[in-house]
């Protein structure tokens, strides 16, 4: 899948990942459901502006890790430090309002609404007009709606989904749904974007498009990205650093090259070296 990278331009003068400041770090996080330990004493950090991949076999705890960062699951042990603030548990509202957005493994779009409306929900936190103002609409509320509509239209342009903006998302093919979901996350203007298998189920062309979008978001908007992905080619080409989980435990942490050569990782996940 290095064909993907060859079609894209990466600016050469990028500061090394380790030299940037830490945006989010999880320390000694453990999470269990009933008797099952999903995550065991995992620590890693994500630096500002980087693309961090989280990889590992199925059931390794990757999605659970994202859910912990988001505040959907609360870890039994450990802390989450985001933008300098240390917490034992994140709340979904705080995560969202502080600038963490995400996409989901099984697309979690609002099936009853159109593409445009779905992406507009991403602007919820930024809309100020109260209910009374919305009830009257003409005036304050209308101006605000239009302002946010302009932002959303730019995202729609960027993701090349103009033709489906009024379509109910339930009717869209899977690949486009994933793109709309990305748009909804982008609408939140996040500092940290969590992507859970954004390319699952896509063909080569769709994957290339998605890679392009992800890289553009990182380059042009400076958004920090954490990415769960199974396609090793994508991981190698896109990410600055990689953390590898297996059965809830971290088994490697470093640049893609380092991780690829790590014997534990090869045994647990990669199989034959490339």
């Amino acid at each position, binding site marked *: 899948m290095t064909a993907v990278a060859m079609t894209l331009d990466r600016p050469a003068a990028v500061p090394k990942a380790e030299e940037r400041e830490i945006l989010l770090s999880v320390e000694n996080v453990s999470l269990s459901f009933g008797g099952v330990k999903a995550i065991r004493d995992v620590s890693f950090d994500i630096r500002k502006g980087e693309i961090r991949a989280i990889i590992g076999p199925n059931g390794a705890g990757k999605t659970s890790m994202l859910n912990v960062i*988001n*505040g*959907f699951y609360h870890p039994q042990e450990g802390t989450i430090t985001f933008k300098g603030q240390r917490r034992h548990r994140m709340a*979904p*509202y705080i*995560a*969202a*309002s502080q600038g963490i*957005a*995400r996409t*989901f493994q099984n697309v*979690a*779009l*609002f*099936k*009853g*609404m159109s593409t445009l*409306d779905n992406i*507009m*929900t*991403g*602007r*919820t*936190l930024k*809309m100020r*007009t109260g*209910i009374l103002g*919305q*009830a*009257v*609409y003409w005036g304050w*509320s*209308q101006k605000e*709606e*239009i302002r946010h*509509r*302009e932002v959303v*239209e730019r995202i729609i342009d960027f993701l090349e989904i103009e033709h489906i903006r009024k379509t109910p998302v339930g009717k869209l093919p899977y690949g486009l749904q994933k793109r709309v979901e990305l748009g*909804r996350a982008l609408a*939140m203007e996040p500092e940290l974007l969590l992507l859970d298998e954004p390319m699952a189920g896509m063909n080569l062309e769709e994957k290339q498009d998605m890679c392009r979008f992800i890289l553009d978001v990182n380059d042009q908007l400076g958004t920090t990205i954490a990415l769960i992905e199974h396609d090793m080619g994508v991981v190698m080409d896109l990410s600055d650093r990689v953390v590898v989980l297996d059965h809830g435990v971290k088994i490697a942490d470093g640049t893609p090259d380092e991780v690829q050569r790590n014997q534990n990782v090869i045994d647990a996940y990669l199989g034959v070296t490339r």
Partner: protein
Amino acid sequence: MLYREAGQFKTSYAADMAIFPIRQDRIGLAILLAFAFVVVPLLAYFEIGPFGHDYIFKAILIPFLILSLAAIGLNILTGYCGQISLGGGAFMAIGAYAAYNFSLRIPELPLLFSILLSGGMAAFVGILFGIPSLRIKGLYLAVATLAAQFFFDWLFLRVPWFTNYTPSGSVNAPELNFFGWVVNTPAERYMLALMFVTVFAVIAKNLTRGNIGRQWMAIRDMDIAAELMGIRPLYAKLSAFAISSFFIGVAGALWAFVHLGSWEPLTFNIERSFQLLFMVIIGGLGSILGCFLGAAFILILPIFLDQVPHAMGVPLSVETVSHLVYIITGALICFLLIVEPHGFARLWAIAKEKLRLWPFPY
């Protein structure tokens, strides 16, 4: 060819986001409003045609308008926000009795404010019963709303303060005096109801196409994802309960004051709750237009079944009509759920789509 959109390009987002973006729709609505606001009262004044008689106002137009308003309220809660409620009748009762007591015990208060305050009262209770909805979902919530229904049935029947200690249990509406305009004749009552419903329908449409409407729909479609995006389920659900109950409460006050004139708690019982729910399902969940279509259908069906066989010489007994109404309504719900879950509103939209292409097949 009539309904073509050709040539109508939206050059601004404002135009695209308008309630009726297609010009033909706007013209149609203008004609409808002109008819409703101007032509009908004139016809009534000069006693022309069916509008010369009270029947069309008292039996059809006034209940249609008020029940549409209640249906809009219920649709906000159940259609847009996805919280099923079998307690619509109870909230109408709260509105009616609150308005009655406000106007009785604070006679200086203008009637308009009594009615709006009664809506506020219903909204307050709606919030109380909405709090459980944060933890209780789906079918369990439906049963919880039944608790509200039966409790308020009992409250207005057995706690005599609410009915001002009348021995019969039934109460009378006060004189309808709105800042000097005394509303008496059926045509005047119709105008009053029409004004209320138009204003409230516009408000409902604005809310549902705005930020809060999207929040409601997000909660309905996938509340977990909504929460992870920063939408607060507490705020969204309670606002849905509050606004929905406000609408239904005002509708209840109007039903009692403008339509009935004198009433007992029984008019707001669980049959009424089911009636509202059916209007919303048949008309279309998540559609303001659907509320009107559903209300019209539910209201006209028994009248139709009564008049038409009679006119054809095969009159049906009152009981048979009532049984047939049950069967047809139930069958229509099952049918719509299978064929078009978005109700009459979607069928209407599909018809318009076909109309855009007419006379071409595709």
